[in-house]
């Protein structure tokens, strides 16, 4: 059965984030408090990298269960890591954990336990900054991801298949991306074919279409294209999505259309959910 490989240090897997950095990412995202889409996406990825680091932390430090790449696409296509990791593509998680570009101090209001609120300062590590400039060269980004995926499957033939997560707010400006997407999912390890999940970030608000199993309810051909590009969720991600209150079926795909802030975070959580970390 596919997608059951144990993820371990000797048999790690890779996650490639493709982040849309086109000009339109400066538009506000749907949600309670308006925020720029680029800010929300960068925040979600930074938070996820912290989360992955904590999840893979053991006595001796962070274990390299994952190698992670963050690829931006807009005016250029390439690594979106800032700081010490600038220019790197797949980086072992232990190195990611130790090398954020900087650690911001953010203040948060929390309940003081006596019915009031109190300000609390928390450290927030950052690996990438929000960028929004240029077109949406999705084809080039997907092809870049394909080279990473191809290299990975050759290097770790027994691993849990690579996961590519594409976060975008618009249509590809360098041609139909379906074929480039198919090329990614044509790569495979002994445990199954590479996974490609797509997240469309909303500009308009409106309710998101999360993890659909057909494109019947999608509003336009652009949404259908992204749906068709997306891999079905492996069973462990399906059950996790269900436990998070998502409606899923056997053919549910890793795709969210018109995502608001909450669904961005949840999508990344579900899409990077590992089978079993050992």
């Amino acid at each position: 059965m596919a997608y059951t490989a144990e993820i371990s240090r000797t048999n790690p897997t890779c996650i490639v984030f493709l982040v849309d950095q086109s000009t339109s990412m400066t538009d506000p995202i749907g949600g309670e408090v308006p925020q720029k889409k680029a800010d929300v996406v960068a925040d979600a990825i930074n938070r996820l990298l912290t989360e992955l680091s904590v999840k893979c932390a053991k006595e001796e430090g962070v274990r390299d269960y994952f190698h992670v790449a963050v690829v931006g696409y807009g005016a250029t296509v390439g690594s979106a890591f800032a700081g010490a990791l600038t220019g790197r593509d797949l980086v072992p998680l232990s190195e990611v954990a130790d090398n954020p570009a900087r650690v911001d101090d953010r203040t948060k209001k929390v309940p003081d336990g006596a019915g009031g609120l109190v300000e609390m300062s928390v450290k927030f590590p950052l690996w990438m900054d929000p960028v929004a400039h240029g077109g949406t060269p999705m084809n080039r980004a997907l092809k870049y991801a394909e080279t990473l995926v191809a290299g990975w499957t050759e290097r770790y033939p027994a691993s849990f298949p690579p996961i590519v997560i594409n976060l975008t707010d618009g249509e590809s400006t360098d041609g139909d991306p379906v074929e480039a997407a198919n090329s990614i999912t044509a790569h495979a390890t002994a445990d199954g074919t590479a996974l490609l999940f797509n997240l469309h970030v909303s500009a308009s608000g409106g309710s998101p279409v999360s993890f659909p199993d057909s494109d019947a309810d999608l509003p336009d051909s652009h949404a259908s294209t992204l749906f068709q590009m997306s891999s079905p969720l492996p069973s462990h991600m399906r059950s996790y999505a269900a436990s998070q209150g998502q409606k899923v079926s056997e053919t549910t795909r890793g795709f969210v259309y018109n995502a608001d802030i909450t669904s961005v975070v949840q999508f990344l959580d579900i899409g990077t959910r590992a089978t079993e970390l050992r």
Partner: protein
Amino acid sequence: MAAAAGPFRQFPTGGEYSEAMQNTHLCFRHPELKGAVPELTKIHTPKAISGAFASVFSLTSAASGRRYAVKCFTRHIPDQEMRYEAISKQLVTLDSTALSQPWKMGFEYLPDAILVGAERYPVLKMEWVEAVTLSAWLDTHHHDSAAVARLADRFSELAADLVAHDIAHGDLQHGNLLVADDGTLRLVDYDGMYVPALSGREGTERGHRNYQSPARGDEDFDSHMDRFSAWVIFLALKAVAADARLWAQLHERHGEYLLLAEDDFKNPSASSRFPALLAHRDQTVRDLADQVRSLSWQPLDALPPLPSAPVSAPTLPLASAAPHSADNGSTLPSWMSGHLPPVSSAPPAEDPDAPPTSFTGRRALDVLAAVLLPITVFVPAILCAAGVLASLLLPLPLTATAFLTWAAHRTRSETRLLRKHVRALTKRRWQATHPDKATNELHRQRMEFDSAETKRKAELTRAQQELLDRHQREVAAADSGKIKKWAAIDRKVSSLDGELRAAMDQALATERATFVQEELRKARIATARLQGIGEKLKGSLAMYGISAAADFTGIRLISTNSGGYASTTALIVKTGGREVNIKGIGAAKARTLDAWRQAQISAAQSRCTIRLSSARRQSITSDFERRRAQHSDERRKAEADAATQRAQAQQRLQDGRVRLSAQDAAALRLAQQQRQAFAQRALQIQESQADLDSVNASLAEARRIRRALSHARYLRFALTGH
């Protein structure tokens, strides 16, 4: 607090706990934890040690200076508080002095202890244990055989403590067994522990996959659930104690297992690690390995506990009594380990390619060989001895029989299977000893495949473009055909108006001519006053059939010149064209007659209508309307034809696209399978190096079988059937 503690409460993530721990004076209320100092990572955030269901933080109390391990849960566990209470109560009853070693760790379950966001969650506050995990300890101590042997005994004592109190840990593994400086064990992580008070409930986890029986399920939650993992750990410790090299040989650096892992238990016959233990020179190692193998698919409650006394070979409690149906090893010899695919989660099954180790079932050919053999040996010998046969000819029948038995032996299914098996093994040994060549070959095939894929995709794009081009041509042709037809129809329609007018004029002219003709018939010569034409002449005219203006159409005057006298003859042209010369009608009278006729015509014409009758008009117009309608039908038909052609073209495009994308999808599926197969092979090459030993062992075993299937054995079998 935390009213939402229903059955499916969402718990914070490890990252959220880590964030909360940055302000321990805010997140904790417990006096020992409030303001406690967490251990930090390199980037100065609280350092977590995470498992599947929880993250543990090290906190040093600001109040007492004591160090704690604080476990924060990332997943809802049913009846968690009740379970911990039951476990705590049970552990408190264990008298520490009665235990084999101080393995029991104190803990305190604190409900609503930590504030994350706006809600409070429970934590488990535990003593901090200064000890190293079993795997880390083995990394540094595996050469110290005496220490490892002592630890094996410590472990069996710990297991005996658990059995004695009807307790099971649920997840015995290298990360939950810690070794303290004095060489005694500590058992940590009691999340999945079973104590008698929890009887009848379900387990909360299934334990580490590399330590569990493939037969373990969720319903396995009782005092037997540690049995399999205990044997696995005990085997590893005893084996490393007997032969320290096994640690380097079978344990992969950073591997999350000791010597054996999940795949080995699921499919012992395909295991690359089992053979090294099953064929080990040390009897204890061999027997323990055989024991673990035989326990793999047995129900957990049928497994024996670890032997309490030091193990002495070869009497093990259940190894020999294990039912053969569950004991894969009894039907699959160890040499097969190099034969089955290395990664397979299928339940163990007999290898269809495996050669049997003896001949069974004689064929007609075997019987023939058996009959001929004595005849060709003894009969010629007797004949020869009797001098009947020249000894020179003796080898002939012998040779023929030898050839026959050779062929019969060679065609036996047993020997064929053996040859196939040896070929496969030799190939694997070649792979193992020539990894570079095998890898290069794989790389070459991969490149070839990739370039074929690239070509196929380019071809697909071309076919798609061609389809689209053809579609556009077809649509354009349909449109231009329609436009041509329309132009022809429009021309016909626009000439209709002119034709209508002409038809009207024609009809009017005919009507008028008919009227004039009628009037001329009514103009009788007899009643007309004509200068110089009297009754007599009128009578002559009547005799020639000219009695009304309608009876002639004009006159013709012919001048003749005879004998110098010019004279003129007047001819009257009758209706019908005949000309008559009537005596008495000369040129002058003829002219009078003609002028009268002309006057009659003029008079009739002036009386005649200048408009067509409305009935006539109606009839002509409706005729033209019919033709007009016909043209617009033709116009519509041309439009409909073009629409049909466009629709057909669209359908062809659609069909073509469906066909291409089905082809593409099929090719992609094949590509996925092919790449998966490449990955499998790469894996095999990697693993074949690791299992070179087992391949060699399998080859040795195959050689042994070859002896069992030798020609001599075959002859015996042909003769005796055994």
